[in-house]
């Protein structure tokens, strides 16, 4: 079982995963908008979610995805999911 990563570590991991979708090369911050700034469409969103799930051994519910707007939202969701998984 993976340990709960700290905030900094989680953010930098997700930032690294997002870099594949960051063709524009902008700086990724917590308030970066996933759709508007990073151009992650619905197909790319699923690719990204899968990478995160594989990395942390999670199952992210689909309906939660539609509520995410920023990178920060995504980081928070992943942390919640990891914590839940650890009980």
């Amino acid at each position, binding site marked *: 079982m993976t340990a709960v990563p700290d905030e900094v570590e989680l953010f930098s991991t997700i930032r690294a995963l997002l870099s594949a979708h960051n063709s524009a090369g902008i700086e990724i911050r917590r308030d970066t908008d996933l759709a508007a700034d990073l*151009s992650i*469409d619905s197909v790319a969103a699923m690719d990204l979610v899968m990478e995160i799930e594989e990395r942390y051994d999670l199952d992210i519910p689909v309906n939660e995805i539609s509520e995410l707007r920023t990178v920060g939202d995504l980081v928070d969701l992943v942390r919640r999911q990891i914590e839940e998984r650890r009980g």
Partner: protein
Amino acid sequence: MLLPTPTTNEILPFRTEGFRTLAEGLDYAARGRTGMNFHDSRGELVCVLSYTELRERAVRLARRLAATGMARGERVAVIAETSPDFVVAFFACQYAGLVPVPLPLAVGFGTRQAYIERLRGMLRAADARLGIAGRELLPVLVEAARETAVLGVHTVEELMLRPAAAVEPEPLGSDEPCYIQYSSGSTSFPRGVLVTQRALVANALAIARDGLALRPGDRCTSWLPLYHDMGLVGCCLTPVMTQIPVDYIATATFARRPLLWLELISRNGGTISFAPTFGYELAVRRAQTANGIDRFDLRSWRVAGIGGEMIRQSVLDRFARIFHPAGFDARAFVPSYGLAEATLAVTFAPLGCGSRVDRVRRGPLFEVRRIAQPAAADEAGAVRDFVRCGRPLPGYAVEIRDDQGRPLPERTIGRVCVRGPSLMREYFRDPAATARVLDRGGWLDTGDLGYLVDGELVITGRSKDLIIVGGRNIWPQDLEWAVERIEGVRPGDVCAFAVADKDEGERVVVIVECRLQDRAARAELRREVHRVVTATAGVEATVVLAPPRSLTYTTSGKLSRAAARERWLAGDILDLDAGAEETAAALVAA
């Protein structure tokens, strides 16, 4: 350990005929051991719902629905997750004399609000009285149900705890509706296709007996959404009517891990599976980065159906090549044509022949006179390949008509009109929209354009999307597919349409979703798009490099060219480089 349902019923005889309603079909299937198998996002089997258990739970829920005081024929809206609860709720409505309305799911980041509005539009149009959703989506449906006629929104679990009606309700009869499917129309005015029991029974039988030649030992595998005709009718209701077992993964699971689809077929020996072209394309895309194609065993897959959108032969060829080492046989491809307004299927290509193309000559004959003249087999250059979608199913007819409604001869392109025992009764409570597509002679104008060759239907595009420039017909797909092949542009990024310009000519507009931040790189892409458009169709176009997510898709994943056109004309889609091309206002204004 959980085991999937068996592929065949040892004792119960295989039967496809003689059912008058969906409920009767399930009554029969419930006497066997087959059923539905649901898999999670990793492909693990998480729930087995035998047809026996499905019927038991549906009847139990039906008695609770009957006790709510809803009148016969009232609508129950159910979010169509790929879950046992959705299927139970759908069939409970059948037993309770209520009409289920499957609702779509949301996709993508930050789409929640638009999704809620779409659901609300459907709840209103269907005048639904009850909403049903899984625990996770319940809050969304509750919000969508505000200011509608919906009296309550619940999970199946909650409803099961309610008191049951003393008397078993009367199931929907053969003259009554079966369900309403919302697949087209706008957010505020969605159009609900009302399918009757008679239509469903007729189409399921035609698909099973004539289209697929189903037999004991067949097994269906599906990731298609259950709010759509191909997923709902093809991969859920038809299997019930034929006692065929189904292995499901959710659509979102497929989108994340497309190869799970093929893994599931390999594991359980699936024989039948359908997808639109883009499904095969996603699998190809993932297979190129994954290794171990030989871990799949696709030898059992005898019908690899294709439908739902214009079929692209090049994608099928790539799929066949990549999965050949896993035992995939390209002869398994079965192109088909259908639409929600006909319940599902209208034509099926013959089994075991693979996908066959009709190669036609481009040029004035094709583009102006709309005649699809066959090209020589080795003819290169100005040719166009179209996939043959097969002949109409027995009991169905296809006629190609001109704009005045006169029938056209073979190899002449016109409006595809169909007749048969499974046409919808109406667009629910929308007589004007119904009258536009259904005539008194029992013909449905599909809105598609195509031609017949040897009695087989070939689809060339949507009539409302056809671009006519200088009297020449240009198919938007041709332009889009060509532009999508440019490096850095992806499938689904491109939309082509025409607008009337200020000189009363038609101007082609090509919108390309663009992720390039660098101005010079964008200029390069713009040049390339112009070049490709000219090379493909010989027309000048206005190229719009738009921000991502500018284009809209229907719930079935079809590009909405009309919506893109409207938004561009309204100035809602702007070029990333202002001044690079003429704006809509400048182009259209006098």
